[in-house]
């Protein structure tokens, strides 16, 4: 089944965030919620309210697969957004330990 996660950038600092299972914005894709198609539409509408409230900008849904309970982006663009530049592993999400970001 095709699954989707919802992402955006936080307004104040531009950081990449994903919609979490509690409806909050989380800083790691591993902590994001994965939705089926119908649920993704509802979640996207909720996320847009967060954009209207000036918390985030640029909300959209993208395809993921869930491996061992963790959402993984299917497209290269989203993999890079989730990790950081592939040519500099010292910057971006990949440079921060998951437990610190949670």
């Amino acid at each position, binding site marked *: 089944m095709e699954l989707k996660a919802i992402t955006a*950038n936080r307004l*104040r600092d*531009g950081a990449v965030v994903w919609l979490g299972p509690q409806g909050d914005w989380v800083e790691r894709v591993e902590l994001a919620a994965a939705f089926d198609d119908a649920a993704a539409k509802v979640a996207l509408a909720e996320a847009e309210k967060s954009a209207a409230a*000036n918390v985030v*900008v640029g909300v959209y849904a993208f395809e993921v697969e869930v491996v061992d309970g963790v959402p993984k982006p299917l497209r*290269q*663009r989203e993999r*890079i957004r989730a990790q950081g*530049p592939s040519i500099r592993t010292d*910057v971006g999400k990949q440079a921060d330990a998951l437990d610190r970001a949670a």
Partner: protein
Amino acid sequence: MTYLAPKRHAGVYRYDEIDRQFLNERVAEYRGQVARRLSGALTEDEFKPLRLMNGLYLQLHAYMLRIAIPYGALATHQLRGLARIGRRWDKGYGHFTTRQNLQFHWIRLEDTPEIMAELAAIDMHAIQTSGNCIRNVTTDQFAGAAPDEVVDPRVYAEILRQWSTIHPEFTYLPRKFKIAITGSANDRAAIRVHDVGLLAKRNEAGEIGFAVYVGGGLGRTPYLGVKVSDWVGEQDLIAYLEAILRVYNQFGRRDNLYKARIKILVHQGGKQKFIDNVEAEFARIRGPKYRLDPAIVEAIERNFAPPPFEELPPYSEAFDRAKREDAAFAVWARNSVRDHRAPGYASVTISLKPIGGVTGDITSDQMDTVADLADRYSFGEVRVTHEQNLVLAHVRQDDLFDLWKALDAAGLGTPNAGLITDLITCPGLDYCSLANARSIPIGQEIQKRFADQQRQQDIGDLKIKMSGCINACGHHHLGAIGILGVDKKGEEFYQITLGGNAELDGAIGDIVGAALPPDEAVDAVESIVDLYLERRQPGERFLDTLARIGMGPFKEKLYGAA
């Protein structure tokens, strides 16, 4: 923030009180806009055009701030200021672009008013680095130093900067508008791929005028600019450009983003019709209001007066001896040092293309080092090149060895300027929200394949240029070997073009065949180079061999016989 002034002899424009007041007011205005956005008084739709007018994009990982470096010229205190910004508000590094600007990729919106204030204190800003306006004017990185220069293009680049900055009529053009200018017949500013390209020259009477090319551009529909006038006298420069912009503003398409650049108006709307319209408008507005006052030209020329060169013999025994005694220095000098118009001096290219590094990236510490070296050896100024390197324009030949040692110690001594590993790449999918594929890792792999210095020297002049999407920030159409990243069902593929050339007799590269996956693309580049080495005749550059034998053998090598 205390205002800082450039070194006395640095070849940069000196802001006056009016310039500084304008910038300070602009910072205050922007500070208010950001505050209103953060409070929710402005929506994103309302705020986005305002931030873009100040160079602030939202990219893949964060906000990106593109800072204008007018015609690529930096005083050393400005470079140190950029280093400070990188350290304090970014991640300690920046990226020089093919438009001679600097980008910081990890900026926080809430910090940007302070960054703008810091920039204003060093006579810098991020205006005209985005939006449908006249963008930062670019020029020859060897201006004022090159032996073949006829006219110093910085003078006119600065005049165009002043004319175009927040020009009320040209702030909402159909699309962005880029101007490049060269003062040498050996075009190093790629003027034929700009919306307007200017070739400054002199007539038999010694008067200055300009050949004007219009309608060049890359992107989805690449075109070389066409010459619309062989001579526009200095005094008419602004009137003529004003006429071009007015015709574009009136007739350029606003209904289709992909057909909105002036190149479409010129090439698809009819060249002669375009020229007729421009000439008619030029005739109408030509007169005192738009005449470029010689007094203004002289005043601006004073900013770019030659620094006080010492009287030196043309030959430096110290330079020659150092080359004989140190083979590594000799290799660097061969590729990085070029002739200067003043006897005993040279211009130096500082490669920002370390093998396996990130093209155009520089750390804050390296910026400080370059600034210190420019103060010591090159009259306190630094140039940014459209090929994403830096230049110290005026270095005594006697000082070259010491300069090289200092650069090398800072990781800035890569001896590949002008060689195959001195390639252009855009930030690509590693940073850019528009990109379809990564550019930098492909560039790194290509560099590693050709890392052997002797092999690079043997290959000679062969420019590789790479873009991660059709917008062509990496000028792939102009690469002798061009590489365009494309997306195929979420995976990266690379399309190869051959025969591009950014010079005055330039050409847009032709596609060789179907796009290839990353590994095969790098293999393909090596195969192309190997075939060139196999088939070239004595003295032939890659482009010469390609012109002689045609695309066929290269196509067959990559894709087999048809």
